[in-house]
């Protein structure tokens, strides 16, 4: 059972959270995206083996979304940062 560091409430068991999948997805411009591009946005994810950035919601706590950098092999979580912060500001990772 993972211990997920909510940037505000602190580390809590994953049962307090909802997973939001891959982070930093770009929503294509709906007026110009092709069906293929929209399909990519809707259904395709990278499914990284290794360091992955993902979104979590502290649903049983402060009810705020944030990003987490997690190694999907070891489950090690090396960073958690609020929405709106770019990937660059938070160090390495895919």
């Amino acid at each position: 059972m993972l211990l997920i560091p909510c940037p505000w409430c602190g580390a809590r068991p994953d049962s307090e959270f909802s997973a939001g999948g891959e982070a930093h997805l770009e929503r294509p411009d709906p007026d110009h995206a092709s069906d293929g591009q929209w399909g990519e946005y809707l259904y395709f994810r990278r499914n990284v083996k290794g360091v992955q950035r993902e979104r979590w919601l502290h649903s049983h706590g402060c009810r705020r979304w944030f990003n987490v950098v997690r190694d999907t092999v070891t489950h090690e979580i090396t960073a958690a940062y609020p929405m709106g912060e770019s990937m660059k500001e938070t160090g390495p990772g895919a």
Partner: protein
Amino acid sequence: MTQPFRIDSGGLINRGKPLTFTFNGKRYTGCEGDTLASALLANGVHLTARSFKYHRPRGIVSAGPEEPCALVRVGTGARVRPNVPATMVELHDGLIAASINCWPGVNFDVGAINNAISGVLPAGFYYKTFMWPAAAWMQYERFIRKAAGLGVTPSFPDPDRYDKRNDHCDVLVIGGGPAGIAAALAAGEAGARVLLVEERAQLGGQLLFRNASIAGQPAREWLAQAESALARLAEVRVVCRATATGYYDHNLVTVLERCTDHVADPAAHLPRQRLWKVRAHRVIVAAGAIERPIVFGNNDLPGVMLAGAAQRYAAQYAVRAGQRAVVFTNNDSGYEAALALAATGVEVAALIDPRERPDCAEAVQAQGIAVMSRHAVIAAAGSKRVQRVTIAPVDATGSKLTGPMQHIACDLVCVSGGWDPAVHLYSQSGGKLVFDGEQHCFVPGAAMQPVRAAGAANGAFFVEDAIEQGRAAALNSDTAAPRRALALQPLWAAPGVPQGAKPFVDLQSDVTAADLALAAREGYVAVEHTKRYTTTGMGVDQGKTGNIIAYGLLGGLTGRTIPEVGTTTFRPPYTPVTIGALAGREIGTSFEPWRRTPVSAWHTAAGAEFEPVGLWRRPMYYPKPGEAMDDAVARECLAVRNGVGMLDASTLGKIEIRGPDALTLLNRLYTNAWNSLAIGRCRYGLMLHEDGMVFDDGVTARLGETHYLMSTTSGGADGVLGWIEDWLQCEWRDLKVHVTPVTAHWATVCVTGPHARDVLTGLASDIDFSGTAFPHMSMRQGQIAGAPARVARVSFTGELSYEIHVPARYGLALWEMLLEAGAAHGITPLGTEALHVLRAEKGFIVVGHETDGTVTPIDLGMQRLVSMNKGDFLGKRGLARADNVRKARKQLVGLLTRDAAVMVPEGSQIVAMENAGRIAQPPVPMLGHVTSSYRSPVLGRSIAMALVADGSNRMGGEVAVVTDGRVVTATLTDPCFYDRQGARLNG
């Protein structure tokens, strides 16, 4: 004392407290401090079980959780516990236990026929025999379950209470032997919050039975001092009878505490067991080591025991496990056991060692014990108890006999093939295991989590080394504590086993060396495959004593070293965990965190039948005495159509939306346009996911310039709130708008029917309910009987309807007041079933009935609710994808069966009707399915809604509904069956 094998003095039992217990129907006496196993041995009872597959007589092999054979059934009735190792059952007065796997009794067992025909039950027998034909498996399974298996689970609900506990500490120490105690002391003295868990009833581990000295101090003295030192440390907690069962991510360890299993008559308010979920900054695994046997012929006979176990029975429990013993060891620890046995009056006939004579032989010989070096026990003999062993000289590697056999009479064979650190939890933590080529066992390697192993669990088999390692682990010191190695020459199985004497590798699953050899011959190489093919290690003991031998033998058979063979995966739990402990309080009415409205208790008192809607339990209908469901629902429906009904609608999701960008938010969330909505007016909207599929619907009211109140479906409130917050927090961070969920703040009662207004005008309120002042699709705020109220005029039934919201504390009073005010009009409470009938008559959709995540608003015939020219909204682009603009998608239609009395079940498949009312030959193309189906009291016939391919172009046509093997003919119609002009709700 009537315990013939009890030693007169010594041990840690209380002779002053005799305890009476029953085993297989016979009464015995033991002592306080005994386990069931030690008490049975004290009474000379060795035959305790029949084996899993061959029903061979089995006895007590170990003195711990690794016990493969002596599984017993403890207790009676609903409290019966099947498959418990007798070695871990603390004796209490009145304890009742019995053997498993035998009928009619352990001494005469019909299933033992399996042993006689064992030649036809080789490895993989069941797979080979019962794989074909597949349909016959159900027959075979019944036979297998009867013929082979363990104890029978109770068939009653578990009457006991189980508890859970979350815990946190700086250092969790698993195991209360010398290493664990030293670790807890060192960490505690350094100020850490320490939790020390010990599986047995008391601390001490090997100190309880080994004659060790620690820095010149007798072990038990050291132990007593350490225990009082631990007790003085306020932040050190010691929990005994607590087994660490699983090691999970981020240093979460589960611990099963047995609170009252050892008590004869536990108080009813105490939990029987408690499951701890311990989150530790650091973990020290000091779980000790498990002795391994050496395989020889008939090594499963009662009286064949691990040497360390015999030593423990003698020293800790003051029990002689036999009168005349043979010790068979390939390492020095067997010599210590021989001395301990001799010291308690057991005659040790011989010590058999395949090695050259080690230094420690001298002390043994000095006690008059014959040490036979370069010898091995190759078989034991006896019927229900070992009576003699056959030994023979062996070569330097122990792989060949080099001389004639001879027999030694004995009633106890003490075996030691070496020691395996209890690496289970360490491995579960993700830590690597490495093979110690000197002591020939797997030991912890590189860690993945903050965990260290210490003591015997880390391959330090000498007490002082263990203490040093415990201390170093606690202080997180990097200096590798030096340790002495246990002198050992590996021997997995004796050579030259005589014909007919089965050599068992896994005593619990009845796997022999021959089974492993067969698997190897058949090409099984991977250890995980071999495990499953032969069932090695698949019993409830998980092969704690046998697995390593299987790896050794498999290596020999396939020309590989043990590290090359590898191990099977160490999975939780370390020892079996009661299902009740996992369930904890999540049973019965607390199985789900059911939600209640302020009126819930009234519904119950009124005799309502409930149905779950999300986590709510909503009244489905209110049967009057003698009334069936259909009658009650029809009565409730007609009351609404002809008079007035009332519904507890408190479960509807409610979200306050405030801020200058509230309108922008609504335009992006809903498919329709919101710009023109005036203050005080309501509008219905559909929400789509980004793929264009409907996921919720509801009415939103505008309460102020920048203030809206959104309603959602009862089950969808959390999902909708999460959806909105997701967009606001992650994507639309520039929008100046806040959403606040207020569902449970309001109690909501819906009053619906032609007399609804008459009821409301009877209330003391400042709200004008007249049709002109308060038109359909509007909301008014005011007060009702002194309470603040919001009233929405919206309708889900097609009748004149009002939803009255008051703060929840007034909810029950409002309900009661409406009952009273409506009495003259025959106001009738209605449940969700009547509501569904009424809305289906009107062709209104229910998300989750008419939608299933693949349905667009266009499919629902709601094009007019989709504004393609208002700018972007969620799902807009998805709606334009090729498949979503495809012609002939499944579309919502009404369905009228030709026979008005026939009702088609929801979910029924719809297929095309060929000529003459027949359906085509299979395979028949599916056109769609029935989404809602009811009997309409007001129409006096069945009605249904369905999603049908190209439905809008098939209106008036006939289709076939296939249901329960029948074919029902039905006509496609508009889904609105009643008051299509909407005259009734606009009055």
